[in-house]
């Protein structure tokens, strides 16, 4: 069996691609081709460097991965949720940090503006964000408020025709690359509001977090807002309360459901091909029952992930997708991908701890993916509440 046949079988054991439309096939192929050529050969090195490779930004914009589901009038291409999912899958097959960049730009920042912004804000930001001329970040988490964002401390006080924003945000993807930060803060009445904060304003500081052992190809920052004054027109008019940022998270989580399929796929393919050529005790390790048991278990989990992603996409397409359904799939897929990558790392033996191979990079990245956009536990509680009608937070 040659490499391509084995890879195809591992990646799509149930021939789900027979269900894809031309659009979905073409989008997947286009993004895969880009990632195979422009990202994967350098991913280990960029990951070690610990910063997002900024030269990719115009290339990703040209490829069209920023806000592709938005209408053409706002710089999008009207991509279906399933094609968008496959795009995320292929980006994260390269690196979770690459997918995170696209997730934050599209699913969080652009989505917040599209869903909650005024027409002027949409016109001003969305087409330029699609072109990668403006990078956005999404500031919800704070040093002392992560899983429970209602506990946020950041305040936006009305002063004349301005809001004055003060507070700190932590773990903000693209924070020090962004020209605009979507900042969530409580107003004088204690209601959560969204603000478009240009990052060059006085009082705004973004500091990179360089101590990460995960998601090293992604830019992650701490934001400090020290009496940052913005005109009232910079507020997102349609966002009232915590529901607004949580709705944005649902978008981004949908992308994670698919992205994790890509990371898991890549780790599983790497480990399987390795097992076929690596010999121990006179035989390829692929011929050992214990290794086969692992590979078959990983393949089964990957298939679960793919089926959940696909049906979730169908629900999205049909307009009936509920956030608890997204939570279920985010919870399952992030954890399954993490465990698949971990086992892939193990099958690679000593080589598995080197970023010359992909497994450990995926594994370390997926620790973040399992935590951000709602931890595994938090999604357990969201689904539990949905199923049982009792909040257990």
């Amino acid at each position, binding site marked *: 069996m*040659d*490499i*391509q*046949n084995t890879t*195809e079988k591992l990646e799509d054991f149930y021939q789900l691609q027979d269900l894809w439309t*031309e*659009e979905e*096939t*073409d*989008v997947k*192929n*286009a*993004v895969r*081709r*880009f990632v195979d050529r422009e990202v994967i050969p350098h991913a280990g090195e960029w990951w070690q460097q610990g910063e997002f490779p900024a030269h990719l930004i115009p290339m990703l914009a*040209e*490829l*069209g*991965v920023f806000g*592709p589901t938005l209408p053409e009038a706002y710089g999008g*291409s*009207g*991509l279906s949720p399933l*094609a968008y999912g496959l*795009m995320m899958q292929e980006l994260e097959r390269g690196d979770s940090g690459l997918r995170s960049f696209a997730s934050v730009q599209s699913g969080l920042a652009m989505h917040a503006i599209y869903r909650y912004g005024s027409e002027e804000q949409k016109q001003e930001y969305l087409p330029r964000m699609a072109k990668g001329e403006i990078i956005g970040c999404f500031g919800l988490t704070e040093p002392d408020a992560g899983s429970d964002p209602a506990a946020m401390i950041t305040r936006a006080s009305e002063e004349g025709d301005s809001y004055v924003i003060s507070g700190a945000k932590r773990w903000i993807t693209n924070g020090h690359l962004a020209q605009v930060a979507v900042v969530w803060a409580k107003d004088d009445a204690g209601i959560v509001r969204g603000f478009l904060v240009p990052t060059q304003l006085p009082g705004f500081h973004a500091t990179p977090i360089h101590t990460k052992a995960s998601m090293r190809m992604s830019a992650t920052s701490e934001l400090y807002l020290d009496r940052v004054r913005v005109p009232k027109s910079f507020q997102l008019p349609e966002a009232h309360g915590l529901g607004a940022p949580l709705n944005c998270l649902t978008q981004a989580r949908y992308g994670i459901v698919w992205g994790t399929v890509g990371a898991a796929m890549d780790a599983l393919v790497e480990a399987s091909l390795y097992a076929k050529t690596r010999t121990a005790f006179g035989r390829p390790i692929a011929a050992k029952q214990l290794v086969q048991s692992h590979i078959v278990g990983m393949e089964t989990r990957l298939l679960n992930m793919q089926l959940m992603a696909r049906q979730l996409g169908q629900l999205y397409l049909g307009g009936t997708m509920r956030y608890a359904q997204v939570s279920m799939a985010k919870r399952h897929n992030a954890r399954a991908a993490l465990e698949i990558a971990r086992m892939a790392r193990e099958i690679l033996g000593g080589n598995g701890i080197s970023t010359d191979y992909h497994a450990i990079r995926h594994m370390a990245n997926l620790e973040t993916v399992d935590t951000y956009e709602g931890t595994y536990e938090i999604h357990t509680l969201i689904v539990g509440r949905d199923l049982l009608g009792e909040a257990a937070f």
Partner: protein
Amino acid sequence: MKILVTVKQVPDTATKIQIRADGQGIQEDGIKWVINPYDEFAIEEALRIKEKQGGEVVIVALGPSRVEEAVRQSLAMGADRAVVISTDAAVDPAAAATALAAVCGEEGFDLILTGKQAVDDDSAQVGPMIAANLGLPQVTVVLKLEVDEAGHRLRAERELEGATEIVELPYPAVVTAQRGLNEPRYPTLPNIMKAKKKEVRRVSMDSLSLALDPRVTVNRLFAPPERPEPTILSGEPEETAKELVRLLHSEAKVL
């Protein structure tokens, strides 16, 4: 400037080819098909000429329904529309060139671009035969192309063994592309979505009523012989070195 690019779909070079039991061709099931890489250089060059000088880029493809994927990819790179000559038959280079030339002639054009050869059968005949069919000048294996619209001439650099040849010719003409002509762009998501609305005209090859009797028929296709087991020499270095030289000289005949 109206540019036609003839595009062939070929098996991805990473695909492992299986020969059919009848020895007349390859098994097509499970193969990953791609645009012939040399045709991608041709598409890119056409798009660049269009971007500089305006005009239209039309893809002309030939083959069974699977070629539609290559056509969509060409449109997603930025071509304006496409004509597909549909046929399920195995087509030899002469028949392909005859059919393509007929459709190109009917379309009308200023320039025809294509790859210098297709990486499946490596015949490298279709480009030159289209030119011959249409009675046009041609330049093959092109590394650099300049279009002088005012003088209605092309200046092309071609790759020769150890040298570069510069030729000038009038157009309409046929130009075949070599690797190095340019760096083909990626199909993009916005263009994939726009491609859905682009016109793809389908003509069945039969409806062209051309005499397409093959001039070349494949007698038999067979895989290269399995490599023999390697010989491993063991013993004292002095002895094995001598034996190695002897084998290289009298068996392998490379020394």
